[in-house]
């Protein structure tokens, strides 16, 4: 899918969003104050774009994701998806929204119901939304698994049989089953080993190209975000302190906190392209002679 022309309205627009958690004290659980988890965030995301949200624990990035997903209630502010404020949606309209925006969570061991087979896991959403019937769900599930690099032989097995990387693929297949336009990845590769992380990042890049997906990629890992994001948003204490196109942001590093974040990351030296073994490069392109 080609990128949309610049004059189209953004897929996601967040205006002065605030999400507060009440602090309750005393026997009667009186609200005495609030934790301002998200404290006035503005953000836009175009269709097909990947926006990386970085920050340390407690900065509000996960609460932001959960609010967009309607798992938390915003205090004030607007969340516009294709121009519609989703914060107040109900019923059929809310259901339609669920098809547009989906999520992949961090912990592949906690996000899949251990009592459901892979077939159940990836088709549950489709059945609920009328996109599949009990008769045709298996065929659709096979295609979904293929899309994420898994074989059909996994369908009748249970999550505990699989590795972290395979489970994340199942979680991604499930998220894609409703045909979303935006995928929120909340630390989706943080719990994975390095080699598996690379596989999943490649998969996400492939899916982005094939399906024109937009990603809201939440992570604390500066190396990952530099690799995958078109734009980076830096959060601290519930607010956005800096944002911009990735290359520009990394070159300028205007805000002291951004500089601190980047300086703190221990990044090993990157070997330049010409010092990489040519046969290694051959291996990833496809079998070649000589």
């Amino acid at each position, binding site marked *: 899918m080609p990128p949309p022309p610049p004059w189209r309205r953004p897929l996601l627009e967040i205006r002065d969003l605030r999400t507060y958690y009440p602090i309750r004290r005393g026997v009667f659980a009186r609200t005495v104050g609030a934790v301002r988890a998200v404290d006035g965030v503005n953000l836009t995301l175009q269709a097909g774009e990947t926006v990386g949200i970085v920050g*340390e624990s407690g900065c509000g990035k996960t609460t932001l994701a959960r609010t967009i997903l309607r798992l938390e209630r915003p205090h004030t502010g607007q969340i516009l998806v294709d121009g519609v404020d989703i914060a107040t949606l109900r019923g059929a309209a809310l259901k339609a929204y669920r098809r547009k925006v989906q999520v992949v969570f961090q912990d592949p061991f906690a996000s899949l119901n251990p009592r459901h087979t892979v077939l159940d896991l990836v088709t549950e959403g489709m059945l609920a939304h009328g996109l599949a019937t009990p008769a045709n769900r298996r065929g659709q599930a096979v295609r979904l698994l293929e899309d994420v690099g898994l074989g059909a032989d996994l369908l009748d097995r249970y999550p505990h049989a699989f590795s972290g990387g395979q489970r994340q693929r199942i979680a991604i297949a499930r998220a894609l089953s409703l045909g979303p336009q935006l995928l929120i990845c909340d630390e989706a590769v943080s719990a994975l080993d*390095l080699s598996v992380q690379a596989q999943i990042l490649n998969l996400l890049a492939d899916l982005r190209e094939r399906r024109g997906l937009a990603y809201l990629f939440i992570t604390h890992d500066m190396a990952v975000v530099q690799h995958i994001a078109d734009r980076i948003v830096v959060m601290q204490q519930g607010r956005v302190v800096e944002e911009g196109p990735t290359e520009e942001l990394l070159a300028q590093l205007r805000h002291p906190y951004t500089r601190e974040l980047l300086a703190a990351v221990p990044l090993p030296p990157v070997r330049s392209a010409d010092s990489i073994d040519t046969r290694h490069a051959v291996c990833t392109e496809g079998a070649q002679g000589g």
Partner: protein
Amino acid sequence: MSSPLLAIRDLHVRFDTEAGSVHAVDGVSLELHRGEVLGLVGESGCGKSALAMSVPRLLPMPPARIEAGGIMLDGRRLDTLAPEALQGLRGRRIGVIFQEQQTALSPLHRVGDQIAEAIRLHRRLPRAELRRQVEEWLGRVGIPEPAARARSWPHELSGGMQQRIMIAMALVHDPDLVIADEPTTALDVTTQAQVLALMRSLHRRQSGLLLITHDMGVIWEMATRVAVMYAGQIVETAPCKQLFGQPRHPYTRALLAALPSAATRGKRLQAIPGQVPSPLDWPGGCRFRGRCAYAQPRCAESDPGLLPCGDAHACRCFLVHDAPEGGATVSDASGSSAALPQPTKCGDKV
């Protein structure tokens, strides 16, 4: 060459589980000299924690057992030491910094008391002196207002501060050997930088640090020498800079090539196809051959063995054994392929 502080010779550690016997550490030999920071790096299940924790014998035994091999601290056997004698060494000559600082600290004791307990384990001191030393250590690990903080409970402190307490507890007796198991994994990136800087500053020239991690960035920051583990074996050892500059083993090279960064923007990462083999049933021959682009028939026949391949550099790979001083031989500019095998596998399906 002085004798090593820590010498591990052909160590085999097994875990007897319901599913079968797991050969977690399979014939590992390594040395750590005073003044060195040896980084032990590998992905989950490679055996690095089992290896490190077998030194102070902090593995649950059963189900773990040391099947064979020796562990020597300054030439003295540790693995055959009686439990009471080993207890005398733990804390005094061997200090351990654990990963999950929140679970390692007792929630029922104030942090000052926990440091005091660590001191009292090996030394008798009057109360006032004990308190003074506790506050001194709190200051040394960078905790502000030490006298007040000593009375804090662990849950009142941030992750970074908790880890500083752990470091203090590990170092109170100036141990010769410090083992740090993923000391910064659970910490934020800026806190991680501070804790690593602290560990670097407290590392003495007479002591040795065995640092276990899966994070190549931490290795780069901290290690003087690196040992890469895969499937219970060491597959490569080298001085730190050399490992990053001229990685020899296909697994090390693949691991480094899989690192995302600003330089890999817009490109596919060179992911390693497949998965780690099951530890219940290690395959014969080279354990990496199922995922290796350069695997040959002989890789299935026998284990290559960890052999020298350069200055202070050792590698477990037949290809590398064929060209020990090779370095960049494999990407010869002239394209000559007389002795070079074809890559036999491509693609990154699961």
